[in-house]
């Protein structure tokens, strides 16, 4: 009924998310004030922890890399009209493939480990996404339900594998550690500024994934089909675009992207696979994709923000011991709440402000839906 008023692009893309994040910090600051700490001190600790040092940057970018992978995974599925909740499970199962290959090749050279574990991670992530995709495409089983279920299956399956099958001798539910010559190089090997941070070569894969996604979505025929299916199923059918194949291909790519997180986190940093290594990165990827409006540039910025929240949050808990680490989670949750679920909260206000600036002209085309 109430027609949405067109807002200038910079308002929707820049101003609205910034306002949302600011509001989240204001309310988060109030929570800090309630427990008797100075909100400004807390915010400074958070900011300094994330960006104040080379090591802070390194951690922030490392976390951001995880978010880029899981965020892009959600975005690509979303462009095809699907809500992939299964990034968590896809990344987890991908860890199995990545670590198996890494442990197999770790006597050779790290380049082989990188290549092999990347391919294996993408394949396993894809596999874990293709099954729900197939069920959706052929059987109509809702992808939200099936991907959630596949998260649970992944969790149980991986626990079993880690505890019973690929357990390191003497260890409890984890694999052995990758040999020295098979370990991926850290950025700090090349740039001293990053000090002891876990930022590794996979970061470049994150950048490549952003570019790849942009090209795929907006510069290829497959991307065109994905967008058509996501925007209008009937139009896709009319155009002769096979929903079955687009759903399966889009989910395969989505799962492969989520899987890349295994290379960054398990192979690159932990150098072994442990139970629950994904640690919620898959779920937060949903918020990253939403905040980034499923656009690679937006996702890059959102991933950076969440990476900073993760890193800064840990520093905050360290600097101000009175602030419980749960409060950091609260601030993260507020950001997700205000940018994701309530992302359009400021829209009516901004519409009123910016609608006046646009000069009404009778020559302008009327929207088709004003006339029933």
């Amino acid at each position, binding site marked *: *009924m109430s*027609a949405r*008023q*067109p807002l200038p692009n910079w308002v929707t893309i820049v101003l609205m998310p910034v306002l949302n994040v600011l509001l989240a910090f204001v309310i988060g600051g109030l929570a800090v004030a309630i427990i008797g700490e100075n909100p400004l001190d807390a915010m400074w600790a958070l900011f300094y922890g994330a960006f104040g040092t080379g090591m802070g940057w390194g951690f922030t970018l490392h976390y951001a890399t995880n978010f880029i992978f899981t965020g892009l995974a959600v975005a690509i599925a979303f462009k095809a009209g699907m809500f992939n909740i299964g990034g968590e499970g896809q990344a987890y199962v991908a860890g199995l493939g990545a670590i198996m290959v890494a442990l197999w090749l770790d006597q050779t050279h790290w380049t082989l480990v990188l290549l092999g574990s990347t391919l294996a991670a993408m394949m396993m992530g894809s596999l874990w996404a293709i099954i729900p995709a197939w069920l959706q495409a052929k059987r109509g089983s809702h992808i939200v339900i099936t991907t959630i279920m596949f998260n649970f299956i992944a969790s149980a399956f991986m626990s079993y594998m880690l505890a019973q099958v690929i357990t390191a001798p003497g260890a409890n539910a984890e694999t052995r550690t990758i040999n020295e010559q098979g370990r991926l190089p850290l950025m700090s090997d090349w740039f001293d500024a990053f000090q002891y941070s876990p930022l590794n070569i996979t970061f470049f894969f994150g950048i490549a994934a952003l570019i790849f996604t942009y090209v795929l979505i*907006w*510069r*290829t*025929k*497959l*991307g*065109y*089909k994905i*967008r*058509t299916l996501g*925007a*209008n199923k*009937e*139009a896709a*059918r*009319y*155009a*002769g*675009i*096979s*929903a*079955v*194949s687009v759903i399966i291909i889009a989910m395969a790519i989505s799962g492969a992207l989520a899987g890349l997180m295994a290379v960054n986190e398990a192979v690159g940093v932990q150098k072994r696979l442990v139970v629950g290594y994904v640690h919620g990165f898959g779920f937060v990827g949903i918020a990253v994709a939403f905040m980034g409006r499923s656009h690679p540039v937006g996702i890059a910025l959102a991933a950076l923000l969440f990476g900073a929240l993760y890193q800064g949050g840990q520093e905050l808990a360290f600097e101000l011991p009175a602030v419980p680490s749960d409060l950091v989670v609260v601030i993260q949750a507020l950001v997700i709440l205000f940018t994701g679920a309530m992302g359009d909260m400021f829209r009516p206000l901004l519409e009123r402000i910016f*609608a006046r600036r*646009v*000069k*009404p*002209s*009778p020559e*302008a*085309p*009327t*929207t*088709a839906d*004003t*006339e*029933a």
Partner: protein
Amino acid sequence: MVEHQTTSAQQPSKAAGSEFAIDLKKVSKAFGPVQANKNIDLAVKRNSIHGIVGENGAGKSTLMSILYGFYTADSGEIWVDGKLVKIKDSSHALELGIGMVHQHFMLVENFTVLENIILGAEGETLLASSMAKAREELGRLAKDYGLDVDPDALIEDLSVGQEQRVEILKALYRGADVLILDEPTGVLTPTEADQLFRILEQLREEGKTIILITHKLREIMAVTDTVSVMRRGEMVGTVATEDTSPEQLAEMMVGRRVLLRVDKTPAEPKDVVLEVNGLSVTDDIGVPRVKDVSFNVRAGEIVGIAGVAGNGQSELLRAISGMEAPLLGEVRINGELVRFDGDDSAAKVRQMGLAHVPEDRIKMGLVTDFEEWENSILGYHDSEAYGSGPFLSPKQSIAEAERRIEMFDIRPRNPRLKTANFSGGNQQKVVLAREMDRDLDVLIVGQPTRGVDIGAIEFIHKHIIELRDKGIAVLLVSVELDEIRALSDRVLVMFDGEIVTELTPDASERDFGLSMAGVDPKEGA
């Protein structure tokens, strides 16, 4: 230009003393940059049938929505029965005696007529007493206005014409004195439309005031006393129906002379291009929608399929275009059998030389979120012309979109504009340009001018005829009988999934009426 007297403006609010049931003064409403209504004056005399015509996007529906309380006007006055009012919402409008019959009925399918009528006006906690009251009241209304409907019938068992009567009864039951009807004949057979007009005349006799919104000039001429014409959000003028003609009204609507008739030479049909043999199609839940339909379309002729909406035309189009696999039967293009395997058959059918202008451009023919150029390649996106290999080249696609924008006079001339921001007529031109501007053997067209303004209708009709003259086989499906008769060389009439008969486009109104109701006039007594 505005010919009605606005003397009542000087009258102080003398209750119920006004000769006008509704009097709008300088009403304006803008949606963002779009001025939907601009200083509209509209005076509707009591006891009259007042028509409002205008092209799509002229602002008719917005104006009525303001009157019915859906929107609030930015400025201007609304006088109802000589009283200045501010209509807050639709229940307030009802209190003031203004009722609306929507284009799309708002009835609960598995409720009875009576239950639907008291819906929203149930009264007390227990239904029984208000049901009894309603039944009595309904009997009276039916008697007074000749609106006969069985109060205990389920809505799903009623015909469309009867459902519409229930909508009218609903409004009357709530005490409406002024009845707004928005495009009421869109879903009716010619006979049902005539019955509706008789009901409207009866209502006028009994003292009601009717506002009839339509784009069909024939209806305006047939039933209204006064007619107001809107164009681009402004009121062009109000005239007495007896003093005007369809040509004059069309000119007022468009702002220039319009050819209402289509010029065409007799067809010269050649070889059969499209063959449909024994086609049967069922819908999602297995209900048969198309039953054993067979026909041919030859190169260089336009075959029209007439019929009231919902008699299987949509399903027929879906099957021929490859969107839906038929249950039985076959479709051949240039003698080649169409294979329905996989959910991308539409692409294969296109490669066989069939172009499809779908009946619903918003739901099917376009992705409204896309920029214009992206819609300009929909269905043909895999072509090398739009980028080599797996890549899509916006540059090449935009260049072609620009050429088509020029050729089909699509406005605004901007291929980077979001398709939703084009008017209905221009959106339709985007679809037509895409489907017509290529090598094709068969064109199937559904509702080519639905929601399209008169100026564009003329243009679209001309293009369809041009294609025919180039030797293309055209299958035209439309619920607008006038359009079918103006364009077709042969007409097949569809009813309940079957082809009732074949008529010539100049067959009598009676023959069309009968066959659209399922009776073959050739077999009739």
